[in-house]
Protein backbone atom coordinates (compact mmCIF):
# COMPACT_ATOMS: atom_id res chain seq x y z
CA UNK A 1 0.00 0.00 0.00
CA UNK A 2 1.69 3.27 0.96
CA UNK A 3 5.40 2.96 0.38
CA UNK A 4 6.62 4.76 3.51
CA UNK A 5 6.42 2.71 6.72
CA UNK A 6 5.41 5.06 9.52
CA UNK A 7 6.97 4.44 12.90
CA UNK A 8 4.57 4.15 15.84
CA UNK A 9 5.28 7.59 17.27
CA UNK A 10 4.95 9.24 13.88
CA UNK A 11 1.33 8.12 13.60
CA UNK A 12 -0.59 10.73 15.57
CA UNK A 13 -3.63 8.83 16.58
CA UNK A 14 -6.60 10.89 17.80
CA UNK A 15 -6.81 10.54 21.62
CA UNK A 16 -9.24 7.65 22.12
CA UNK A 17 -11.40 8.62 25.06
CA UNK A 18 -12.38 5.34 26.59
CA UNK A 19 -15.74 6.68 27.67
CA UNK A 20 -17.16 7.42 24.21
CA UNK A 21 -18.18 4.79 21.67
CA UNK A 22 -15.02 3.61 19.94
CA UNK A 23 -15.25 5.73 16.77
CA UNK A 24 -13.48 4.46 13.66
CA UNK A 25 -11.84 6.95 11.30
CA UNK A 26 -13.58 7.82 8.04
CA UNK A 27 -12.14 6.21 4.92
CA UNK A 28 -12.36 8.45 1.84
CA UNK A 29 -13.24 6.26 -1.14
CA UNK A 30 -14.11 7.43 -4.66
CA UNK A 31 -16.70 5.19 -6.33
CA UNK A 32 -15.37 6.68 -9.41
CA UNK A 33 -16.09 7.23 -13.05
CA UNK A 34 -15.10 3.70 -13.99
CA UNK A 35 -17.24 1.50 -11.77
CA UNK A 36 -19.18 -1.62 -12.70
CA UNK A 37 -22.49 -0.48 -11.27
CA UNK A 38 -22.64 3.29 -11.73
CA UNK A 39 -24.44 2.98 -15.08
CA UNK A 40 -21.92 5.17 -16.86
CA UNK A 41 -19.32 7.70 -15.76
CA UNK A 42 -20.83 8.84 -12.47
CA UNK A 43 -18.64 9.34 -9.47
CA UNK A 44 -19.44 9.44 -5.76
CA UNK A 45 -16.97 10.57 -3.13
CA UNK A 46 -17.98 8.39 -0.21
CA UNK A 47 -16.72 8.73 3.36
CA UNK A 48 -17.02 5.32 5.01
CA UNK A 49 -16.87 4.41 8.65
CA UNK A 50 -16.16 0.70 8.42
CA UNK A 51 -18.65 -0.13 5.71
CA UNK A 52 -21.30 2.37 6.72
CA UNK A 53 -21.68 5.48 4.57
CA UNK A 54 -21.26 8.72 6.52
CA UNK A 55 -20.90 11.24 3.68
CA UNK A 56 -21.64 10.94 -0.03
CA UNK A 57 -20.90 13.68 -2.55
CA UNK A 58 -21.89 12.92 -6.17
CA UNK A 59 -19.51 14.29 -8.84
CA UNK A 60 -20.88 14.91 -12.32
CA UNK A 61 -19.49 16.26 -15.56
CA UNK A 62 -17.60 13.27 -16.90
CA UNK A 63 -20.03 13.09 -19.82
CA UNK A 64 -20.83 16.79 -20.15
CA UNK A 65 -21.05 16.93 -23.96
CA UNK A 66 -22.28 20.55 -24.16
CA UNK A 67 -25.67 19.57 -25.56
CA UNK A 68 -27.17 22.98 -24.79
CA UNK A 69 -24.28 24.98 -26.30
CA UNK A 70 -24.53 22.91 -29.47
CA UNK A 71 -28.32 23.40 -29.44
CA UNK A 72 -27.83 27.16 -29.56
CA UNK A 73 -25.57 26.95 -32.62
CA UNK A 74 -27.87 24.68 -34.64
CA UNK A 75 -31.29 24.99 -36.21
CA UNK A 76 -34.31 23.65 -34.34
CA UNK A 77 -34.47 20.52 -36.43
CA UNK A 78 -30.69 20.15 -36.27
CA UNK A 79 -30.76 19.33 -32.56
CA UNK A 80 -33.47 16.71 -32.91
CA UNK A 81 -30.94 13.86 -33.49
CA UNK A 82 -29.01 15.17 -30.48
CA UNK A 83 -32.03 14.59 -28.27
CA UNK A 84 -31.66 10.83 -29.00
CA UNK A 85 -28.28 11.00 -27.29
CA UNK A 86 -29.63 12.64 -24.16
CA UNK A 87 -31.18 9.59 -22.50
CA UNK A 88 -29.83 6.96 -24.83
CA UNK A 89 -32.25 4.32 -23.56
CA UNK A 90 -35.39 6.22 -24.51
CA UNK A 91 -34.79 8.15 -27.74
CA UNK A 92 -38.49 8.19 -28.70
CA UNK A 93 -39.62 9.95 -25.53
CA UNK A 94 -36.77 12.46 -25.83
CA UNK A 95 -37.87 13.23 -29.37
CA UNK A 96 -41.46 13.62 -28.25
CA UNK A 97 -40.54 15.99 -25.40
CA UNK A 98 -38.54 18.19 -27.77
CA UNK A 99 -41.21 18.09 -30.49
CA UNK A 100 -43.89 18.91 -27.89
CA UNK A 101 -42.00 21.98 -26.66
CA UNK A 102 -41.36 23.30 -30.16
CA UNK A 103 -44.99 22.72 -31.08
CA UNK A 104 -45.97 24.70 -27.99
CA UNK A 105 -43.43 27.38 -28.95
CA UNK A 106 -44.71 27.72 -32.50
CA UNK A 107 -48.35 26.72 -31.96
CA UNK A 108 -48.39 23.70 -34.29
CA UNK A 109 -51.22 21.14 -34.43
CA UNK A 110 -50.43 17.43 -34.82
CA UNK A 111 -52.68 15.08 -36.86
CA UNK A 112 -54.47 12.27 -35.07
CA UNK A 113 -52.52 9.29 -36.35
CA UNK A 114 -49.22 10.94 -35.41
CA UNK A 115 -50.47 11.46 -31.85
CA UNK A 116 -51.46 7.79 -31.61
CA UNK A 117 -48.07 6.73 -32.99
CA UNK A 118 -46.35 8.94 -30.44
CA UNK A 119 -48.26 7.33 -27.57
CA UNK A 120 -47.52 3.83 -28.88
CA UNK A 121 -43.80 4.53 -29.30
CA UNK A 122 -43.52 6.26 -25.93
CA UNK A 123 -45.13 3.31 -24.15
CA UNK A 124 -42.91 0.84 -26.02
CA UNK A 125 -39.91 2.91 -24.89
CA UNK A 126 -41.18 2.83 -21.33
CA UNK A 127 -41.46 -0.97 -21.53
CA UNK A 128 -37.89 -1.51 -22.70
CA UNK A 129 -36.52 1.13 -20.32
CA UNK A 130 -38.18 -0.44 -17.27
CA UNK A 131 -37.12 -3.91 -18.39
CA UNK A 132 -33.49 -2.81 -18.78
CA UNK A 133 -33.61 -0.97 -15.45
CA UNK A 134 -34.83 -4.09 -13.62
CA UNK A 135 -32.08 -6.07 -15.34
CA UNK A 136 -29.40 -3.62 -14.21
CA UNK A 137 -30.87 -3.30 -10.70
CA UNK A 138 -30.79 -7.07 -10.14
CA UNK A 139 -27.34 -7.04 -11.68
CA UNK A 140 -26.19 -4.57 -9.02
CA UNK A 141 -27.78 -6.72 -6.34
CA UNK A 142 -25.51 -9.59 -7.32
CA UNK A 143 -27.57 -11.63 -9.80
CA UNK A 144 -24.69 -11.19 -12.19
CA UNK A 145 -25.80 -11.12 -15.81
CA UNK A 146 -28.77 -13.51 -15.88
CA UNK A 147 -31.67 -11.07 -15.37
CA UNK A 148 -29.88 -8.63 -17.68
CA UNK A 149 -29.90 -11.24 -20.45
CA UNK A 150 -33.66 -11.74 -20.09
CA UNK A 151 -34.26 -7.99 -19.99
CA UNK A 152 -32.12 -7.38 -23.05
CA UNK A 153 -33.88 -10.16 -24.93
CA UNK A 154 -37.14 -8.21 -24.50
CA UNK A 155 -35.36 -4.96 -25.32
CA UNK A 156 -34.02 -6.41 -28.58
CA UNK A 157 -37.57 -7.24 -29.72
CA UNK A 158 -38.68 -3.65 -29.16
CA UNK A 159 -35.51 -2.29 -30.78
CA UNK A 160 -36.33 -4.33 -33.85
CA UNK A 161 -39.66 -2.52 -34.00
CA UNK A 162 -37.93 0.85 -33.70
CA UNK A 163 -35.37 -0.10 -36.34
CA UNK A 164 -37.96 -1.21 -38.90
CA UNK A 165 -39.90 2.02 -38.24
CA UNK A 166 -37.22 4.67 -37.94
CA UNK A 167 -34.16 3.00 -39.44
CA UNK A 168 -32.00 2.94 -36.31
CA UNK A 169 -32.10 0.76 -33.20
CA UNK A 170 -31.30 3.29 -30.52
CA UNK A 171 -31.08 6.69 -32.19
CA UNK A 172 -34.48 6.92 -33.82
CA UNK A 173 -34.74 10.68 -34.59
CA UNK A 174 -38.29 9.82 -35.63
CA UNK A 175 -40.49 12.72 -34.57
CA UNK A 176 -40.77 16.07 -36.30
CA UNK A 177 -42.47 19.33 -35.28
CA UNK A 178 -46.05 18.66 -36.24
CA UNK A 179 -46.00 14.86 -36.59
CA UNK A 180 -43.71 11.97 -37.39
CA UNK A 181 -41.15 11.42 -40.08
CA UNK A 182 -42.64 8.37 -41.83
CA UNK A 183 -45.61 6.06 -41.52
CA UNK A 184 -45.39 2.48 -40.20
CA UNK A 185 -44.24 -0.08 -42.77
CA UNK A 186 -46.77 -2.81 -43.70
CA UNK A 187 -47.01 -5.51 -41.03
CA UNK A 188 -45.45 -3.29 -38.36
CA UNK A 189 -48.67 -2.98 -36.38
CA UNK A 190 -49.22 -6.77 -36.37
CA UNK A 191 -45.65 -7.38 -35.20
CA UNK A 192 -46.07 -4.76 -32.49
CA UNK A 193 -49.32 -6.39 -31.37
CA UNK A 194 -47.61 -9.79 -31.14
CA UNK A 195 -44.78 -8.40 -29.05
CA UNK A 196 -47.21 -6.60 -26.76
CA UNK A 197 -49.31 -9.77 -26.39
CA UNK A 198 -46.24 -11.86 -25.48
CA UNK A 199 -44.69 -9.27 -23.17
CA UNK A 200 -46.75 -10.26 -20.07
CA UNK A 201 -44.92 -13.62 -20.03
CA UNK A 202 -41.70 -11.73 -19.31
CA UNK A 203 -43.35 -9.70 -16.53
CA UNK A 204 -44.90 -12.84 -15.01
CA UNK A 205 -41.52 -14.63 -14.97
CA UNK A 206 -39.96 -11.52 -13.47
CA UNK A 207 -42.60 -11.19 -10.79
CA UNK A 208 -42.43 -14.87 -9.98
CA UNK A 209 -38.64 -14.78 -9.65
CA UNK A 210 -38.07 -11.37 -8.17
CA UNK A 211 -41.06 -10.07 -6.29
CA UNK A 212 -41.32 -12.89 -3.78
CA UNK A 213 -37.61 -13.62 -3.62
CA UNK A 214 -36.42 -13.16 -0.04
CA UNK A 215 -32.93 -12.10 -1.13
CA UNK A 216 -34.42 -9.24 -3.14
CA UNK A 217 -36.80 -8.40 -0.29
CA UNK A 218 -33.95 -8.51 2.21
CA UNK A 219 -31.74 -6.28 0.04
CA UNK A 220 -34.34 -3.69 -0.94
CA UNK A 221 -36.95 -3.32 1.77
CA UNK A 222 -36.35 -0.45 4.19
CA UNK A 223 -33.32 0.57 2.15
CA UNK A 224 -33.09 4.16 0.95
CA UNK A 225 -36.43 5.42 2.24
CA UNK A 226 -37.59 8.67 0.61
CA UNK A 227 -40.27 10.63 2.48
CA UNK A 228 -43.03 12.19 0.35
CA UNK A 229 -42.44 15.82 1.35
CA UNK A 230 -38.67 15.56 0.78
CA UNK A 231 -39.45 14.01 -2.61
CA UNK A 232 -41.75 16.90 -3.58
CA UNK A 233 -39.38 19.55 -2.28
CA UNK A 234 -36.39 18.01 -4.04
CA UNK A 235 -38.25 18.02 -7.36
CA UNK A 236 -38.20 14.24 -7.75
CA UNK A 237 -40.45 13.05 -10.54
CA UNK A 238 -41.46 9.81 -12.15
CA UNK A 239 -41.61 6.31 -10.62
CA UNK A 240 -39.28 7.40 -7.79
CA UNK A 241 -41.79 10.03 -6.66
CA UNK A 242 -44.79 7.75 -6.97
CA UNK A 243 -42.97 5.12 -4.92
CA UNK A 244 -43.16 7.55 -2.01
CA UNK A 245 -46.91 7.75 -2.40
CA UNK A 246 -47.28 11.09 -4.22
CA UNK A 247 -49.90 10.79 -6.96
CA UNK A 248 -48.31 12.95 -9.69
CA UNK A 249 -48.05 11.60 -13.23
CA UNK A 250 -47.69 14.18 -15.98
CA UNK A 251 -49.68 11.98 -18.36
CA UNK A 252 -52.68 12.56 -16.07
CA UNK A 253 -51.81 16.06 -14.82
CA UNK A 254 -51.01 17.74 -18.15
CA UNK A 255 -53.00 15.33 -20.30
CA UNK A 256 -50.63 15.97 -23.24
CA UNK A 257 -50.93 14.01 -26.48
CA UNK A 258 -53.90 11.58 -26.55
CA UNK A 259 -53.38 10.23 -23.02
CA UNK A 260 -56.80 11.47 -21.81
CA UNK A 261 -58.36 9.06 -24.33
CA UNK A 262 -56.88 6.01 -22.62
CA UNK A 263 -57.98 4.45 -19.34
CA UNK A 264 -54.98 3.51 -17.22
CA UNK A 265 -54.13 3.59 -13.52
CA UNK A 266 -51.13 5.07 -11.73
CA UNK A 267 -49.37 2.67 -9.28
CA UNK A 268 -48.43 4.26 -5.96
CA UNK A 269 -46.07 2.98 -3.27
CA UNK A 270 -46.40 3.39 0.49
CA UNK A 271 -42.93 3.22 2.01
CA UNK A 272 -40.79 4.89 -0.66
CA UNK A 273 -37.98 2.38 -0.23
CA UNK A 274 -36.03 0.64 -2.98
CA UNK A 275 -38.50 -2.25 -3.05
CA UNK A 276 -41.34 0.15 -3.84
CA UNK A 277 -39.31 1.79 -6.60
CA UNK A 278 -38.63 -1.63 -8.08
CA UNK A 279 -42.30 -2.54 -7.89
CA UNK A 280 -43.32 0.78 -9.48
CA UNK A 281 -41.48 -0.21 -12.64
CA UNK A 282 -43.01 -3.68 -12.69
CA UNK A 283 -46.55 -2.29 -12.27
CA UNK A 284 -45.98 0.55 -14.74
CA UNK A 285 -45.00 -1.99 -17.35
CA UNK A 286 -48.43 -3.57 -16.97
CA UNK A 287 -50.14 -0.19 -17.30
CA UNK A 288 -48.12 0.55 -20.44
CA UNK A 289 -49.28 -2.74 -21.90
CA UNK A 290 -52.93 -1.83 -21.31
CA UNK A 291 -52.38 1.60 -22.91
CA UNK A 292 -50.75 -0.06 -25.90
CA UNK A 293 -53.67 -2.47 -26.32
CA UNK A 294 -56.18 0.41 -26.28
CA UNK A 295 -54.03 2.44 -28.69
CA UNK A 296 -53.78 -0.46 -31.15
CA UNK A 297 -57.59 -0.64 -31.31
CA UNK A 298 -58.19 3.08 -31.68
CA UNK A 299 -55.49 3.97 -34.25
CA UNK A 300 -56.83 4.76 -37.75
CA UNK A 301 -54.89 5.30 -41.00
CA UNK A 302 -54.44 8.96 -41.87
CA UNK A 303 -51.87 11.70 -42.44
CA UNK A 304 -48.95 11.68 -40.04
CA UNK A 305 -47.44 15.12 -40.73
CA UNK A 306 -48.93 18.59 -40.44
CA UNK A 307 -48.45 19.88 -44.03
CA UNK A 308 -48.23 23.56 -43.05
CA UNK A 309 -44.99 23.18 -41.07
CA UNK A 310 -41.86 24.22 -43.02
CA UNK A 311 -39.02 21.75 -42.68
CA UNK A 312 -36.16 23.77 -44.12
CA UNK A 313 -36.20 27.34 -42.84
CA UNK A 314 -38.30 26.75 -39.72
CA UNK A 315 -38.52 29.99 -37.73
CA UNK A 316 -40.85 29.92 -34.71
CA UNK A 317 -42.25 33.30 -33.60
CA UNK A 318 -40.44 35.25 -30.88
CA UNK A 319 -41.33 33.94 -27.43
CA UNK A 320 -40.53 31.12 -25.03
CA UNK A 321 -42.12 27.82 -24.09
CA UNK A 322 -41.59 25.04 -21.57
CA UNK A 323 -42.95 21.65 -22.64
CA UNK A 324 -42.65 18.53 -20.53
CA UNK A 325 -43.62 14.87 -20.74
CA UNK A 326 -43.65 11.89 -18.40
CA UNK A 327 -40.49 10.13 -19.49
CA UNK A 328 -39.66 6.65 -18.16
CA UNK A 329 -37.28 8.27 -15.64
CA UNK A 330 -39.40 11.25 -14.68
CA UNK A 331 -40.36 14.68 -15.94
CA UNK A 332 -38.35 15.46 -19.07
CA UNK A 333 -38.80 19.09 -20.07
CA UNK A 334 -37.44 21.38 -22.78
CA UNK A 335 -37.35 25.15 -22.21
CA UNK A 336 -36.86 27.07 -25.44
CA UNK A 337 -36.46 30.82 -25.93
CA UNK A 338 -36.83 31.88 -29.55
CA UNK A 339 -35.71 35.25 -30.92
CA UNK A 340 -37.38 34.63 -34.31
CA UNK A 341 -34.20 33.27 -35.86
CA UNK A 342 -33.44 29.78 -37.11
CA UNK A 343 -31.46 28.88 -33.97
CA UNK A 344 -33.01 28.91 -30.51
CA UNK A 345 -31.71 31.74 -28.31
CA UNK A 346 -31.71 29.46 -25.29
CA UNK A 347 -32.13 25.64 -25.43
CA UNK A 348 -32.51 24.09 -22.00
CA UNK A 349 -33.17 20.43 -21.11
CA UNK A 350 -34.73 19.63 -17.74
CA UNK A 351 -33.31 16.12 -17.14
CA UNK A 352 -35.16 13.86 -14.69
CA UNK A 353 -32.13 11.80 -13.63
CA UNK A 354 -30.08 14.93 -12.81
CA UNK A 355 -32.70 16.31 -10.42
CA UNK A 356 -33.54 12.88 -8.99
CA UNK A 357 -29.94 12.60 -7.81
CA UNK A 358 -30.44 15.54 -5.43
CA UNK A 359 -31.60 13.17 -2.71
CA UNK A 360 -29.01 10.43 -3.33
CA UNK A 361 -27.04 11.45 -0.24
CA UNK A 362 -30.15 11.52 1.95
CA UNK A 363 -31.09 8.03 0.81
CA UNK A 364 -27.65 6.50 1.31
CA UNK A 365 -26.62 7.88 4.71
CA UNK A 366 -26.39 5.13 7.27
CA UNK A 367 -26.52 2.30 4.77
CA UNK A 368 -23.67 0.00 3.83
CA UNK A 369 -21.61 0.39 0.70
CA UNK A 370 -23.40 -2.49 -1.01
CA UNK A 371 -26.73 -0.77 -0.46
CA UNK A 372 -25.47 2.42 -2.11
CA UNK A 373 -25.25 0.52 -5.38
CA UNK A 374 -28.78 -0.83 -5.04
CA UNK A 375 -30.14 2.61 -4.19
CA UNK A 376 -28.32 4.17 -7.14
CA UNK A 377 -29.70 1.43 -9.38
CA UNK A 378 -33.25 2.15 -8.20
CA UNK A 379 -32.82 5.89 -8.90
CA UNK A 380 -32.22 4.91 -12.56
CA UNK A 381 -29.82 7.48 -13.95
CA UNK A 382 -28.40 7.72 -17.46
CA UNK A 383 -25.28 9.84 -17.70
CA UNK A 384 -26.02 11.27 -21.13
CA UNK A 385 -29.01 12.97 -19.58
CA UNK A 386 -27.45 13.82 -16.22
CA UNK A 387 -24.44 15.64 -17.68
CA UNK A 388 -26.07 16.74 -20.98
Amino acid at each position, binding site marked *: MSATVQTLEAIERPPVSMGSRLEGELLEVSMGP*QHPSTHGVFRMNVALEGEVVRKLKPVFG*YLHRNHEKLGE*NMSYLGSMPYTDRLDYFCSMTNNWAYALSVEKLAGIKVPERAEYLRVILAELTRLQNHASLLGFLLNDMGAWGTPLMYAFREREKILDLFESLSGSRMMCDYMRFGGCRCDTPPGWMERAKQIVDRFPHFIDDLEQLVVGNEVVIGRTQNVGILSPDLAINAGIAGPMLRASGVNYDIRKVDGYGFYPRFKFRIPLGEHGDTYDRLMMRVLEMRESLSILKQAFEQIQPGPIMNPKVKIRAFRPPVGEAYGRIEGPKGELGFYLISDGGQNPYRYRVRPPSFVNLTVLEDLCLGHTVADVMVILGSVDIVMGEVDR
Partner: protein
Amino acid sequence: MTEPIDERLRSELQQHGVWVTSMQELYNWGRKNSIWPLQFGLACCAIEMIATAASRYDIARFGGEIFRPSPRQADLMIVAGTVTKKMAPQIVRLYNQMADPKYVIAMGACAISGGPFKQGYNVLKGIDRYIPVDVYIPGCPPRPEALLHAFMELQRKIDSQKLSGADKAEHLKPEQPSEFPVPLFGEHDLESSANPGVFHPPEIERA
Protein backbone atom coordinates in the same frame (compact mmCIF):
# COMPACT_ATOMS: atom_id res chain seq x y z
CA MET B 1 10.80 -19.00 -35.43
CA THR B 2 11.44 -16.29 -37.92
CA GLU B 3 9.68 -17.56 -41.03
CA PRO B 4 6.28 -19.28 -40.69
CA ILE B 5 5.93 -23.05 -41.19
CA ASP B 6 4.91 -23.77 -44.78
CA GLU B 7 1.41 -25.14 -44.97
CA ARG B 8 2.07 -28.02 -47.33
CA LEU B 9 4.48 -29.61 -44.91
CA ARG B 10 2.08 -29.07 -42.06
CA SER B 11 -0.94 -30.67 -43.79
CA GLU B 12 1.17 -33.57 -44.97
CA LEU B 13 2.33 -34.31 -41.42
CA GLN B 14 -1.19 -33.91 -40.17
CA GLN B 15 -2.37 -36.79 -42.32
CA HIS B 16 0.06 -38.95 -40.37
CA GLY B 17 -1.38 -37.68 -37.12
CA VAL B 18 1.49 -35.32 -36.33
CA TRP B 19 0.50 -31.78 -35.40
CA VAL B 20 3.12 -29.09 -35.93
CA THR B 21 2.93 -25.68 -34.34
CA SER B 22 5.31 -23.00 -33.16
CA MET B 23 5.62 -21.17 -29.85
CA GLN B 24 4.40 -18.00 -31.51
CA GLU B 25 1.28 -19.59 -32.95
CA LEU B 26 0.45 -21.19 -29.63
CA TYR B 27 1.08 -17.92 -27.76
CA ASN B 28 -1.06 -15.84 -30.15
CA TRP B 29 -3.78 -18.51 -30.43
CA GLY B 30 -4.17 -18.53 -26.66
CA ARG B 31 -4.20 -14.74 -26.34
CA LYS B 32 -6.51 -13.91 -29.20
CA ASN B 33 -9.25 -16.33 -28.15
CA SER B 34 -9.52 -15.10 -24.58
CA ILE B 35 -9.39 -11.30 -24.65
CA TRP B 36 -10.85 -9.91 -21.45
CA PRO B 37 -12.29 -6.43 -22.05
CA LEU B 38 -12.27 -3.78 -19.32
CA GLN B 39 -15.78 -3.03 -17.98
CA PHE B 40 -15.77 0.58 -18.99
CA GLY B 41 -18.60 2.33 -20.78
CA LEU B 42 -18.85 6.05 -21.36
CA ALA B 43 -22.05 6.76 -23.29
CA CYS B 44 -24.50 5.36 -25.84
CA CYS B 45 -21.88 3.13 -27.44
CA ALA B 46 -21.56 1.37 -24.08
CA ILE B 47 -25.19 0.31 -24.35
CA GLU B 48 -24.50 -1.19 -27.76
CA MET B 49 -21.46 -2.89 -26.19
CA ILE B 50 -23.72 -4.38 -23.51
CA ALA B 51 -26.17 -5.43 -26.24
CA THR B 52 -23.23 -7.13 -27.98
CA ALA B 53 -22.36 -8.92 -24.77
CA ALA B 54 -26.03 -9.93 -24.30
CA SER B 55 -27.49 -13.13 -25.66
CA ARG B 56 -28.47 -12.03 -29.17
CA TYR B 57 -25.17 -10.76 -30.57
CA ASP B 58 -23.20 -12.87 -28.12
CA ILE B 59 -19.56 -11.79 -27.89
CA ALA B 60 -18.86 -15.04 -25.99
CA ARG B 61 -18.52 -16.77 -29.35
CA PHE B 62 -15.21 -14.86 -29.70
CA GLY B 63 -14.07 -15.46 -26.12
CA GLY B 64 -14.62 -11.89 -24.99
CA GLU B 65 -17.59 -12.06 -22.65
CA ILE B 66 -15.67 -11.75 -19.38
CA PHE B 67 -15.80 -8.02 -18.68
CA ARG B 68 -13.30 -7.33 -15.89
CA PRO B 69 -13.99 -4.26 -13.74
CA SER B 70 -10.34 -3.90 -12.69
CA PRO B 71 -7.72 -2.81 -15.25
CA ARG B 72 -5.24 -5.19 -13.70
CA GLN B 73 -7.08 -8.18 -15.11
CA ALA B 74 -8.15 -6.70 -18.46
CA ASP B 75 -6.30 -6.92 -21.79
CA LEU B 76 -8.60 -4.79 -23.93
CA MET B 77 -9.99 -1.32 -23.31
CA ILE B 78 -13.07 -0.59 -25.44
CA VAL B 79 -13.43 3.22 -25.35
CA ALA B 80 -17.18 3.20 -25.95
CA GLY B 81 -18.63 6.70 -26.00
CA THR B 82 -17.78 10.38 -25.96
CA VAL B 83 -14.43 11.14 -24.36
CA THR B 84 -14.79 14.42 -22.50
CA LYS B 85 -11.84 16.50 -21.36
CA LYS B 86 -12.83 15.88 -17.74
CA MET B 87 -12.71 12.11 -18.33
CA ALA B 88 -9.53 11.99 -20.46
CA PRO B 89 -7.01 11.90 -17.56
CA GLN B 90 -8.94 9.03 -15.98
CA ILE B 91 -8.93 7.05 -19.22
CA VAL B 92 -5.17 7.51 -19.68
CA ARG B 93 -4.56 6.52 -16.05
CA LEU B 94 -6.69 3.38 -16.52
CA TYR B 95 -4.75 2.55 -19.67
CA ASN B 96 -1.49 2.93 -17.78
CA GLN B 97 -2.70 0.62 -15.03
CA MET B 98 -3.54 -2.20 -17.41
CA ALA B 99 -1.25 -5.22 -17.67
CA ASP B 100 1.04 -5.17 -20.61
CA PRO B 101 -0.15 -6.89 -23.75
CA LYS B 102 -3.04 -4.39 -23.87
CA TYR B 103 -5.11 -3.20 -26.79
CA VAL B 104 -7.56 -0.34 -27.36
CA ILE B 105 -10.66 -0.32 -29.53
CA ALA B 106 -12.02 3.21 -30.19
CA MET B 107 -15.73 2.46 -30.56
CA GLY B 108 -17.95 5.04 -32.17
CA ALA B 109 -17.40 8.36 -33.90
CA CYS B 110 -17.04 10.15 -30.55
CA ALA B 111 -14.05 8.11 -29.41
CA ILE B 112 -12.41 8.41 -32.83
CA SER B 113 -12.72 12.16 -33.43
CA GLY B 114 -15.29 13.74 -31.13
CA GLY B 115 -18.18 12.64 -33.34
CA PRO B 116 -21.42 14.70 -33.36
CA PHE B 117 -20.25 16.54 -30.23
CA LYS B 118 -17.00 17.67 -31.84
CA GLN B 119 -17.68 21.38 -31.37
CA GLY B 120 -18.33 21.02 -27.67
CA TYR B 121 -15.89 22.89 -25.41
CA ASN B 122 -15.62 19.91 -23.06
CA VAL B 123 -15.26 17.17 -25.71
CA LEU B 124 -11.88 15.63 -26.55
CA LYS B 125 -11.50 15.30 -30.31
CA GLY B 126 -10.59 11.62 -30.28
CA ILE B 127 -8.89 9.36 -27.72
CA ASP B 128 -5.93 8.64 -30.01
CA ARG B 129 -4.49 11.99 -28.90
CA TYR B 130 -3.34 10.38 -25.67
CA ILE B 131 -3.28 6.60 -26.03
CA PRO B 132 -2.41 4.36 -29.03
CA VAL B 133 -5.56 2.87 -30.58
CA ASP B 134 -5.52 -0.51 -32.33
CA VAL B 135 -8.94 -0.74 -33.98
CA TYR B 136 -11.32 2.10 -34.87
CA ILE B 137 -15.05 1.41 -35.40
CA PRO B 138 -17.02 4.17 -37.09
CA GLY B 139 -20.71 4.55 -36.32
CA CYS B 140 -22.88 6.43 -33.90
CA PRO B 141 -23.48 4.03 -32.23
CA PRO B 142 -21.91 1.25 -34.29
CA ARG B 143 -24.15 -1.75 -34.53
CA PRO B 144 -23.26 -4.78 -32.39
CA GLU B 145 -22.14 -6.57 -35.55
CA ALA B 146 -19.64 -3.75 -36.14
CA LEU B 147 -18.21 -4.32 -32.67
CA LEU B 148 -17.92 -8.04 -33.40
CA HIS B 149 -16.14 -7.19 -36.65
CA ALA B 150 -13.75 -4.99 -34.69
CA PHE B 151 -13.18 -7.88 -32.31
CA MET B 152 -12.27 -10.16 -35.20
CA GLU B 153 -10.04 -7.43 -36.63
CA LEU B 154 -8.24 -7.24 -33.30
CA GLN B 155 -7.84 -11.02 -33.24
CA ARG B 156 -6.25 -10.89 -36.69
CA LYS B 157 -3.91 -8.21 -35.45
CA ILE B 158 -2.91 -10.29 -32.40
CA ASP B 159 -2.42 -13.32 -34.61
CA SER B 160 0.05 -11.47 -36.79
CA GLN B 161 2.21 -10.25 -33.91
CA LYS B 162 5.72 -11.71 -33.95
CA LEU B 163 7.34 -13.22 -30.89
CA SER B 164 10.92 -12.25 -31.74
CA GLY B 165 12.98 -10.58 -34.42
CA ALA B 166 13.13 -6.89 -35.34
CA ASP B 167 9.42 -6.31 -35.84
CA LYS B 168 8.29 -8.23 -32.78
CA ALA B 169 5.21 -7.20 -30.86
CA GLU B 170 5.28 -3.78 -29.16
CA HIS B 171 4.92 -5.07 -25.62
CA LEU B 172 7.91 -7.35 -26.03
CA LYS B 173 10.27 -4.51 -26.88
CA PRO B 174 11.96 -3.15 -23.73
CA GLU B 175 12.28 0.41 -25.06
CA GLN B 176 8.59 0.69 -26.02
CA PRO B 177 6.79 2.70 -23.28
CA SER B 178 3.92 0.94 -21.60
CA GLU B 179 2.40 4.05 -20.05
CA PHE B 180 1.81 7.56 -21.27
CA PRO B 181 1.73 10.93 -19.46
CA VAL B 182 -1.64 11.74 -17.93
CA PRO B 183 -2.92 15.15 -19.17
CA LEU B 184 -3.49 17.74 -16.42
CA PHE B 185 -6.49 20.03 -15.96
CA GLY B 186 -5.61 23.55 -17.15
CA GLU B 187 -7.56 26.77 -16.75
CA HIS B 188 -9.08 26.73 -20.22
CA ASP B 189 -8.24 23.32 -21.62
CA LEU B 190 -6.26 20.18 -20.82
CA GLU B 191 -2.59 21.01 -20.32
CA SER B 192 -1.07 19.12 -23.22
CA SER B 193 -3.76 19.09 -25.88
CA ALA B 194 -2.21 15.94 -27.42
CA ASN B 195 0.63 13.54 -26.73
CA PRO B 196 3.05 13.98 -29.67
CA GLY B 197 4.65 10.60 -28.95
CA VAL B 198 1.38 8.84 -29.66
CA PHE B 199 -0.67 11.14 -31.86
CA HIS B 200 0.48 11.06 -35.49
CA PRO B 201 -2.21 12.87 -37.50
CA PRO B 202 -2.04 12.36 -41.29
CA GLU B 203 -0.16 15.14 -43.08
CA ILE B 204 -2.84 16.32 -45.55
CA GLU B 205 -1.82 18.52 -48.46
CA ARG B 206 -4.08 21.56 -48.02
CA ALA B 207 -5.54 22.83 -51.28
